[in-house]
């Protein structure tokens, strides 16, 4: 799955969750992330996982998208195995914390076009920070796509062989060189585009962010209920 797939799902996805105003979704994400961070109970983490999976269902997101959480899951499993001497519960708690955080972020980016996410961020963060976020997001996925294409080309042209180490090293060096050249060209092209469009220290990003729909209020209430529930449990325990 690459940026075009994520963008496609975010823009053309048709569900109640997709139709909610972006600012409501960003606030909900912050509330749920805060709940994940402050919760110190395995039960709460399991409940949050259940809630997130239900929201994936509401948003009509396929398992292919939830697969994006595999990386933090694997990372957390390794972590959990290493800390298993503290007990299975603690290991599971650590793993769920990482997976839940990732699922929350994936839910946001696959139901909200990234331009709208950055538009919400631009209301609270300094312009420079938002611009750097924007450029990083674009560049990362463009470079990742480029790496994938280069690696495919290398395999098709016989530039990779499991047993020929020196051939592989030479190929990887050439791939990196090409990638850097491509990145440089991309950077120069972006600079020209910014100059042509009169960039003056802020990339203008506009989106309709007014919270007004019934579903917006429902989602915000849900986020608040989750947070209050976690805080109450936290204090009681």
């Amino acid at each position: 799955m690459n940026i075009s797939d994520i963008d496609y799902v975010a823009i053309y996805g048709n569900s109640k969750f997709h139709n909610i105003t972006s600012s409501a979704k960003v606030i909900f994400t912050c509330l749920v992330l805060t709940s994940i961070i402050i919760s110190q109970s395995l039960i709460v983490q399991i409940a949050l996982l259940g809630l997130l999976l239900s929201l994936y269902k509401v948003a009509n997101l396929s398992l292919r998208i939830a697969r994006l959480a595999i990386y933090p899951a694997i990372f957390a499993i390794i972590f959990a195995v290493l800390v298993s001497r503290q007990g299975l519960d603690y290991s599971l708690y650590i793993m769920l914390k990482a997976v839940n955080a990732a699922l929350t972020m994936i839910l946001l980016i696959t139901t909200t076009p990234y331009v709208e996410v950055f538009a919400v961020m631009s209301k609270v963060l300094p312009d420079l920070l938002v611009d750097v976020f924007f450029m990083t997001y674009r560049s990362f996925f463009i470079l990742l796509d480029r790496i994938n294409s280069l690696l495919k080309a290398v395999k098709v042209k016989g530039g990779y062989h499991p047993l020929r180490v020196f051939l592989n090293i030479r190929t990887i060096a050439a791939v990196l060189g090409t990638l850097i050249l491509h990145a440089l060209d991309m950077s120069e092209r972006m600079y020209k585009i910014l100059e042509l469009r009169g960039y003056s220290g802020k990339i203008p990003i506009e989106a309709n962010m007014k919270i007004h729909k019934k579903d917006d209020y429902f989602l915000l209430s849900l986020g608040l209920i989750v947070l209050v529930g976690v805080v109450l449990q936290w204090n009681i325990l």
Partner: protein
Amino acid sequence: MSHIHFPDGIIPLYIWIPAYLVTFGIIFLITKTIEKEKIKKLLPLTGIAAALMLIGMSVPLVIIPVHLSLAVLTGILIGPKLGFVVVFVVGLILASFGHGGITIVGINTLVIGSEVFVGSMLFRLLGKKKKLLGVVFSTVIALVISLALMVSVVGYTAGFENALPHTHLEHSHEHEEHIDHHEDHHEHSGELEESISNINYLFFSGWVALILIFVFGIALETIVTSLIVMFFYKVRPSLIDSAHNFANN
């Protein structure tokens, strides 16, 4: 190289909140002092440096139990100010996808930000006349400083044995004991000795293995950074010079 992977809930509140506040303070100062023209010129390269850093930080090296950060490279390419902003952005993106906790982003930004700052300033000082030597020297010194900072932070908050590379992924274990039982120094130092003796790398173990891992890690990061910077000099010599005003000095 020096990148803390603690999940949320390990680092105490009195450490991570001030770290976030200091980070935001520095970012606020940067946004107020950086020249608009410089941002326009370097913004596209900033995105690319951040993307390279993201890729470097998310891919484990396997042959060494650490991973690249490419922070010094970022500092050399775009300077210390934008470099610091990039470190925060990359840290936040990684944390959002489960690579370390969100509460650790402020501390990580300060630790890796120091790497960016020291590396960039040293390169500015030494790289004008002797480029390769400048890159190598600034990378090594910056890595040693940030590594020391990371070990200090991890050691203070969760015990020094958790800062060791073989426990790279297990920073959270026994955190409660480490935070609450500072008084038990003897047991603590015994644990540290035991942890060090358990480190194995290639045919070595204990302190030798630990030093080898750090040396290999620093050497690898230095080699990669030097190769990329020299490649940039070969294909676009003006790029780095303009970021450090070498042509004007």
